[in-house]
Structure formats: structure tokens, C-alpha cells
């Protein structure tokens, strides 16, 4: 699971410090350094780590602590709060409404897991009583339509796509119009992978968006992404103004710090996480329980309410 090793390391650093005989400022600095290293190794953006380091130092104010203060608790809380702050953008995601057409458009880098996650999300809503369907607006990637078609067929979800139309804007518009007419409640639009360095691809994303007028644009991010996460997600945010993030491949070994940095850079909530290649491998995301899990629960959990 994402970030678990990181959590273990952070917890160990705090525990080491509070157990050590001389709990002085030097030991405190050492602990912060160890936490920073753990975050960097988890792919958290290096500038963000520097900020975090300052936040923890500033909120603990080590040299001002009275001699009898519960230092361990104060430090733990500071670490916990600053981490929750990263994954909790204090903003809710769009809630689809029954009885009307909710259009959800997927965007993201190449190979992040968009097509796979589209069907997972469609199934998720279908299982909750929504009339759900899929539109394949990826006309670029070889076999993209077959991929979506096979997934949708397995999940018994209606789909739309074209083997002859090469303009994704046209396919997206036609598909969404058709399904709106048929009163589908959740219409999920898959698009091809793209990156900020290629202007034409970003322009295409804007055109698709203009054509389908999504209620929600979702950015899909691979949990293993490294330092490029921040710049790419910022660029997607500026261009497509996505309102939610889904992190995929959290069943892998990566700590997910890159994806977390994307959240921090764009102040956008993570709504779901992908936990495998199969249709049902999707979970709702909850920042509080995420950080508790990240920090290995235990005595940190009591801090959530404070």
C-alpha cells in the first residue's frame, strides 16, 4: 500500500528521538533530517520536502518548549498535521446527481491507467444505481478502442467509440450527445495520454473538453511517478482545471510521494485509488485514514480528532 514504508520510517524517527536519552535540539534536527530523507525517497517533491521541514520546525519551536512538555506528542502532532495538510486540499470533489447526465472526462500522462480506471469507475457508479456508460475518445493509441470495448463488455457497461473517425473531438461529442439523449446518468469519457511538452496534445484536450463540457475532469496519476509529477500536474491543472485526482497502481511498491506532491501543487482532492488491474480494484480515498495508515496507526490515531 502506498506510503506504508514511509510511515514506518517516520514513526521510527519520532520514536527514536523521544526514546533517546538526550532529547536536545540537535537530536530534533536529526529527526527532521531523517524524515526529510524518507520523504525524498518516497518521491515527494524536493522543494515540498524543504517546506515541510520548515513547517515542522516552526510549529514545534523546540527551544521554547517548557522542560516538562510532552515532546513526543508535540512532535508527532506536528508531523501528522503537516502530512495531512498535503493530502487534504480542504476541497470537496464533484458529487454526481441522480436523474441528470453527469459527464466525467479522464485526462493524464501516457500509460497512467486512464482506460483501465474509466471502466472501474463506471462499474463503481453502476453498482450504486446510476445508469452508466463509456465513451472512447482516444483515437490515437493503437488498440485503445478495443481495450475499452473489452473492459466495458466484461463489466456489462454500454460504450461508444469509432474505428474510422480519427478526430477525438468528434467522437467525444457524438458519444456524449448520444448518451445524453438516452438519459444516461454517468457518462465517462476516456482520452489519450498526453504531456505538457507537446502543445498540440494539450490543445486537443481543451477542444475535447469544450465539446463535451464535463461536470468533472479527473486527472489519473501513476503512484510510481517521481519528480516530474509536480510540473506535469500543474500544467494539466492550468490547462484542463481538473477537479479530482485518481492515483493508480497503489498495489505496486512505490511510496506514492510524487502523486502526493501533485495534490499539494494543485490543491485537488484524491477521490479514488486504483489497487490492481482488475475491474473491482478501486477504493475510495480518505485523507485522514490515509495518513493514519501511512503512519502505521497506533498512537498517532488519537491525534486525528484534535
Amino acid at each position: 500500500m502506498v506510503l506504508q514504508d514511509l510511515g514506518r520510517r517516520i514513526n521510527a524517527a519520532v520514536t527514536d528521538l523521544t526514546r533517546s536519552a538526550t532529547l536536545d535540539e540537535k537530536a530534533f534536527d536529526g529527526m527532521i533530517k531523517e524524515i526529510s530523507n524518507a520523504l525524498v525517497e518516497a518521491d515527494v517533491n524536493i522543494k515540498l520536502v524543504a517546506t515541510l521541514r520548515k513547517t515542522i520546525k516552526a510549529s514545534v519551536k523546540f527551544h521554547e518548549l517548557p522542560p516538562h512538555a510532552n515532546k513526543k506528542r508535540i512532535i508527532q502532532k506536528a508531523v501528522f498535521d503537516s502530512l495531512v495538510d498535503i493530502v487534504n486540499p480542504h476541497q470537496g470533489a464533484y458529487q454526481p446527481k441522480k436523474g441528470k447526465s453527469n459527464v466525467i472526462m479522464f485526462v493524464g500522462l501516457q500509460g497512467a491507467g486512464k482506460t483501465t480506471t474509466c471502466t472501474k469507475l463506471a462499474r463503481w457508479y453502476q453498482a450504486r444505481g446510476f445508469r452508466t456508460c463509456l465513451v472512447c475518445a482516444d483515437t490515437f493509441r493503437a488498440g485503445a478502442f478495443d481495450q475499452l470495448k473489452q473492459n466495458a463488455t466484461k463489466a456489462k457497461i454500454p460504450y461508444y467509440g469509432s474505428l474510422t473517425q480519427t478526430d477525438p473531438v468528434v467522437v467525444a461529442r457524438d458519444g456524449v450527445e448520444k448518451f445524453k439523449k438516452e438519459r444516461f446518468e454517468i457518462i465517462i469519457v476516456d482520452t489519450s495520454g498526453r504531456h505538457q511538452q507537446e502543445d498540440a496534445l494539450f490543445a486537443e484536450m481543451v477542444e475535447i473538453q469544450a465539446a463535451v463540457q464535463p461536470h468533472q475532469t479527473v486527472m489519473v496519476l501513476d503512484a510510481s511517478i517521481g519528480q516530474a509529477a509536480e510540473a506535469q500536474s500543474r500544467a494539466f491543472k492550468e490547462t484542463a482545471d481538473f477537479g479530482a485526482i485518481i492515483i493508480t497502481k497503489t498495489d505496486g511498491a512505490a511510496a506514492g510521494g510524487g502523486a502526493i506532491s501533485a495534490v499539494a501543487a494543485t490543491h485537488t482532492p484524491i477521490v479514488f485509488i486504483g489497487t490492481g488491474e482488475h475491474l473491482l480494484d478501486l477504493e475510495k480515498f480518505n485523507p485522514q485514514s490515509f495518513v493514519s495508515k501511512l503512519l502505521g496507526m497506533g498512537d498517532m490515531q488519537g491525534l486525528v480528532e484534535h
Partner: protein
Amino acid sequence: LTGLFRNVVGGKTLTKQDLIQPLQQMQNHLLEKNVAREAAARLCASVEADLLNQRTANFTSIDSTIRESMSKALTRILTPTSSLDLLRDVTTTISPPNPRPYVISIVGVNGVGKSTNLSKIAYFLLQNQFRVLVVAGDTFRSGAVEQLRVHVRNLSELSRREDVGKIELFEKGYGKDAATVARDAVTYATNTAGTEGNGMLFDVVLIDTAGRRHNDTRLMSSLTKFGQLANPDKIFMVGEALVGTDSVAQARNFAKEFVDTKGKLRNNGVGMDGFIISKCDTVGDMVGTLVSMVHATGIPVVFLGVGQHYGDLRGLNVGWAVDKLMK
């Protein structure tokens, strides 16, 4: 890099104390370029060993001395010890006295660009007049077979138009055992029947495989059987430039699956033959994955993927990579 010691000019014998802070800055610089911390720390240690007790040259700051040493260290780690000449290797293998098809397989985690870069290699081989059999060894992911069928159709069209090589798809649909499909494909390519004395049907067999998590022990261990049954001449792993620290474990865990029937790691104990680092066009200067994967295994980078089209495959230019990393 803005260094505290920028103004120290020339003729200084470097102590550990002098080096600590500028090396820390250098390490942070590498981390920003997406080099894994483990690899960055190793590079900085080698720079320290290189410079400790050395005198800086005249009019040279500690910073620029460190930069120079780091450029050298990066060049050293990225430069392969033996160069790979794929075209020559293929030519030798398919020529008498014992001609047989040259077999390449592509492995890697999910979505990194295996199938796409396999198609780019096919294009490169076609341009060099070889006959290529593409094998749909990903029998799991939806659309994987159709994806390759589209690529083979496109490339077939290209090769007809340009009158170079020939290409065909070998597929057995979904759900089949990939190792068996791969072995049957090699047998098929070796077939001499109906070739009117032209020798075998194909010169090169390119085998695609399903993406898998390197921490999935069941799927990972099936690679061992795959390697033994298909017995490829080259196993290339695709790693994407976008990936962070996980690159190190990805490289190590894939490499260790490729043992021969006697339990010995292939390719002189390193397991695989090379990395293809894909999506280099998506990371700007942050090409640290190159360094991390080589650091983890000692396996060289043989190709870079620099886009989504057939021509977007490059050999590694070490100078280019070092420039980006030092920028």
C-alpha cells in the same frame, strides 16, 4: 547551484569539511533531476573520494571542481562497458554456419511503453531490411493483442511502400501461457518450409510481454520460465523516465528473475541485456531514471524512447544525458 564557497579560487587542498555542504547541494541537485537518493548518494560519495585531499586548480572554485568531478562520475556510470551493435548481432546470428532467428523480448511494469517501443524496434529493424515476427506475448491486458495488430498493420504498410523487410504478427489470443506462445513463435520463425531455399521464415522474433508489478511474486516468477522457454538473445527492460525512486527496485527485481536452468543469472550474472528508457520527452531535464536503473544493476541503457511515433527511438548519447543532469 549557488555555492557558499563559490568565491574560493584555486590552490586549495580540499578537506572533508570543505566538501560537506557543496556535496549536499550537489546531491539535492541530482534529486531534483529525479535521480533516486540511493544513486545520488553513491555518486556524491565517489566525488568525495575523488576530491578529498586534492588541490583545486588555479582560478577554480570548489563548486566547479565538484561539478567537473560529478560530470565524470555520471559519464562513467552511464557509459556501457561493452557496446551493443544490435544490427551486427542479428546479422551474425542469422548467417551460416548455424543460422537461426534472433530473439528479443521486452519486459517491464504496467504501462511503461513496452508494446510501443517494441514496435519502434520493429520499425528500426525493417528499415535495415530484416524480416520481423512480432509476438503477442501479453495474453492478459484487454486490447493488448489488437494494439500489436494495429502496429503490425501500420508497419507492414510502411515496409511495403518503402520496399524494406517484412513483418507479421504471431498471436494465440488471450488467456494462453505466454512462455508457450513465445516458444511456438520462435519455432514458427525458424521454419524453413515454403521459403524456397531462403532459409528461415523470419530473421528477428520480437516478443511483447504483459506488464507486471515487480512486487507481485507470482507474476514475476513466471518470467523465469518465460526466459527459459523462449530463450531470447536479448532481454530488454522498459523503464519510464517518469518513474521515481521505484526505478531502482523495478530494475533489480526484474533482473533477478532471469536465471538459466542451472540457476545462474543470464548475461554474465546481470540477468538482462539492456534498458529502454521511455517517455524521455515528458520529463525535460529530469532524466535521472537513466542513472538510477543503471546504478541498481550495472545493466546499460541501450535505447531511449522520445515520443509516441515509430521513429522516436534513439541510442543513448552519454554526453547529452550528462548535460541534462548537470544543467
